[in-house]
């Protein structure tokens, strides 16, 4: 396998994590910890797949997947932001619910074939020597994820609205005192995170694999949560982390291809083990985590209390 192909595959494998982790990053920047990423990804995946299969438009599926992720996150938002429920428990509930819902909704679509979103193929560019495939051979949704990253970086650190989101995440009390609608801002951040997770799931279902299998995200939602910590809440580092994990995920498919005789389970464990190791290394410096994490992360906020 040549280098260009390796890069294309690594980016393709890392992209669901880019979407999901970027969405969660924005949610967490507003001070809300949503552990329901896995459930929202699966809801996005199954919805996009069903819509793609019935309308024959994969792009419409992507839009529907984003809407499904946002809709699920809205439930979480109502629980945690309006009803002041515990964010950890609500996020877990969202994951369990999304896993159940997607399995239920996708039953009739398990062996359905759809017209997927395929990688770019612009002969003049993609066939360029050396850099052709590397630069122009990716799936459109891979490019979109990088555009999204730049947009989020710009929004959070270059706009007034982004500053307000971060202020709400650092100190909702102060933000409220100045007159910002804390709950409304957090609702927006939560739903943005949901839409991104849904988009990540949709990418898996209508572009990356492209098929629907129960529980097909296989823990990527949880890995995305770990990636946000790994990235110390900085958007660009998410990209690095996601592609690193994309590469690890690839190992399980590639090792057999090059004739390494090792049970597949060992290789399947790698992404999870890598997550644990990386999380431990990054979290070791407790002071750095405290410094970078939004100060009010995970704490409910009610103006009365």
């Amino acid at each position, binding site marked *: 396998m040549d280098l260009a192909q390796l890069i294309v595959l690594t980016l393709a494998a890392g992209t669901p994590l880019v979407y999901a982790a970027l969405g969660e990053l924005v949610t967490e920047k507003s001070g809300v910890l949503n552990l329901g990423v896995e459930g929202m990804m699966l809801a996005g995946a199954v919805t996009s797949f069903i819509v793609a299969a019935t309308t024959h438009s994969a792009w419409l599926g992507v839009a529907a997947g984003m809407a499904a992720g946002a809709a699920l996150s809205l439930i979480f938002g109502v*629980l945690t932001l309006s009803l002041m429920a515990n964010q950890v*428990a609500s996020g877990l*509930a969202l994951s369990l619910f999304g896993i159940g819902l997607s399995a239920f909704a996708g039953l009739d679509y398990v062996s359905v074939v759809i017209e997927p979103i395929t990688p770019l193929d612009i002969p003049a560019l993609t066939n360029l020597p050396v850099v052709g495939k590397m630069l122009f051979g990716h799936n459109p949704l891979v490019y979109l994820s990088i555009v999204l990253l730049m947009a989020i970086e710009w929004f959070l650190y270059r706009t007034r609205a982004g500053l307000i989101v971060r202020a709400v995440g650092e100190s909702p009390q102060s933000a409220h005192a100045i*007159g910002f609608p804390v709950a409304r801002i957090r609702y927006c951040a939560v739903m943005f995170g949901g839409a991104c997770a849904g988009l990540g799931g949709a990418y898996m279902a209508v572009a990356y694999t492209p098929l629907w299998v129960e529980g097909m995200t296989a823990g990527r939602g949880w890995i995305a949560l770990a990636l946000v910590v790994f990235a110390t809440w900085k958007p660009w580092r998410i990209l690095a982390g996601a592609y690193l994990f994309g590469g690890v995920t690839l190992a399980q498919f590639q090792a057999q291809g090059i004739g390494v005789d090792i*049970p597949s*389970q060992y290789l399947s464990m790698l992404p999870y083990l890598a997550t644990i190791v990386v999380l431990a290394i990054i*979290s*070791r410096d407790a002071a750095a985590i405290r410094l970078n994490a939004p100060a009010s992360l995970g704490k409910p906020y*009610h103006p009365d209390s």
Partner: protein
Amino acid sequence: MLKLEARPEPSRVAGWLSPLLAAAATVVVGFILFTILGKNPWLAFHAFFIKPLTTQYGVGELLLKATPLMLIAVGLAAGYRANVWNIGAEGQLTMGAIFGGGVALYFQQSASPLLLPAMLLAGIAGGMLWAAIPALLRTRFNANEILTSLMLVYVATLTLSLLVHGAWRDPEGFNFPQSRMFGDAALLPILVADTRLNIGLPLALAVVAMAWVFMRRSLAGFQMRVAGLAPAAAIYAGFSSRRTIWLGMLIGGACAGLAGVGEVAGPLGQLLPSASPGYGFAAIIVAFVGRLHPLGIVLASLLMSLLYLGGESAQINLAMPAAVTGLFQGTLLFFLLAADVFIHYRLRAVRGPARGARLLDPH
């Protein structure tokens, strides 16, 4: 307009009413869902909640499935009370199944009465070992136990898969990914004839009682509850947060490991690629619905077990997908969390938004 107003102190009544409210709301959602799917909701209700309990065998199944749920939930609750978020019970259960099952396979020919206790201890050790990893990573490296314990679920499941596809596969099993059947001495004795209910249930109830005594009557249990209710007070009082984390994780792991070996030495009788239909995750819901209280957990485990049985019954009688169980489990937890708002807040009617707040608007 209605507004949430903080109660001066949490309402105990609301705390115990909330699970009932949540269960009722879940049933209503079920009715709506069945109607949308074109099933008669009354028939579906009957198939889901009544039919499984009409036979002695059915009641035995209810208690059989409730056993691992209450066992795991009571272990998790000890941690949750102390703000230790172990959500990897499914993995600890799987490790318990592997360790306990491993002993059974290693002593395949044994008829010793010590075999079963040895298996149970091995299962507990397996669960504790698996829970010790997140505890170590949390206390030594500050790594979030939610994520590490969950990642280890996948590792444990893959380990079990590795074993039943490889080293421990039954040589006479036609290449199916499963171990040999355990010998009789490795199986939990049946409690009621003509059912699959085994002595795991009284064992689990004993563990629940022990957990209650530990959390209510021991100093370590008290320190854990303080750590959960008032972390700052726990630090001020000099309670070791490390010990809280270790205890919270290990108790959860031990209970889940015991539940895991209980499955392989009980209804399964051998090692299969999966040791449980998601008991480790369902037990999280059981712990919350049961208010993290031993008695509540026992009741909640029966409800959750009924959801499992109802799902199977609806599959057979109504051609409903079994996945509906997972859907109801999540719905139940949602409603519970929503209803819990009334523990700390009450509704108060107010006349429009306060005008004075406008003065502070920066624009």
